[in-house]
């Protein structure tokens, strides 16, 4: 059943993104930036944690989970180290995605050429 929930949640997030793209002058960059901020906002009430519990990977795949991971890591570190932890723990959960994107992107850029 969690497969269906994943499908529906991830699909709905993408649908909202598509509706914003179609009906406003926003570019994909605006939409992804907006979604990250929304994700961080939702997690400041602990709401996004519940989404992940209910929808599994469906809530981890959209870019909103990037904002969620940023604030989640920061708050976790803040429990131990206070305000310094907010700065230090910010990337503790997201670094997997960012580093993977940078490293794979760079290696593949070295191998392949621009098409055109």
């Amino acid at each position, binding site marked *: 059943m969690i497969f269906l929930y994943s499908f529906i949640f991830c699909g709905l997030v993408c649908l909202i*993104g598509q509706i914003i793209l179609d009906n406003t002058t926003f570019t994909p960059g605006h939409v*992804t930036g907006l979604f*990250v*901020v929304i994700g961080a906002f939702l997690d*400041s009430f602990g709401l996004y944690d519940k989404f992940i519990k209910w929808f599994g*990977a*469906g809530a981890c795949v959209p870019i909103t989970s990037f904002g969620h991971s*940023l604030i989640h890591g920061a708050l976790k570190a803040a429990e131990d180290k206070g305000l310094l932890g*907010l700065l230090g723990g910010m990337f503790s959960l997201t670094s997997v995605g960012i580093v*993977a994107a940078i490293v794979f992107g760079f290696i593949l850029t070295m191998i392949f050429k621009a098409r055109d």
Partner: protein
Amino acid sequence: MNKERYKEITDRIVPKEDKLKNGITAFIIGGLIGLIGEIIVFVLEKEFNVPNKDATSIMIVILIFIASVCTALGFFDNLVSKAKAGLIVPITGFAHAMTSSMIDYKKEGLITGIGANAFKLTGSVILYGVVSAYIFGTIRYLFFGG
């Protein structure tokens, strides 16, 4: 008269239908990516006994790797123009933006090309994500006790 009326009706209907089609495509493609992610997590947990947190991270790495390879091979742009937000909103869009901005500026050199432009598209995601997370985190920490 009849023709004009017909045109009026189609003008009113066609763009709407297009938006509907875009929405449905984005919903299905985006949903499929979520489903693939969930299947990867499920397989990793059941077959390889990976803990849930690690399985999610591995799933994200796999999706980023697939998206980066597709971008480097050059057919991800076509997929995005068809699936639209269905591929932009998931983490695949992040990997695509990163790899494509690096590849596009490769001919300008390692530093002024790749180095300077790597975060051209993803920079906004990281910048606004970090700033908003810091502000919301500070509010939560100071006023609601972490």
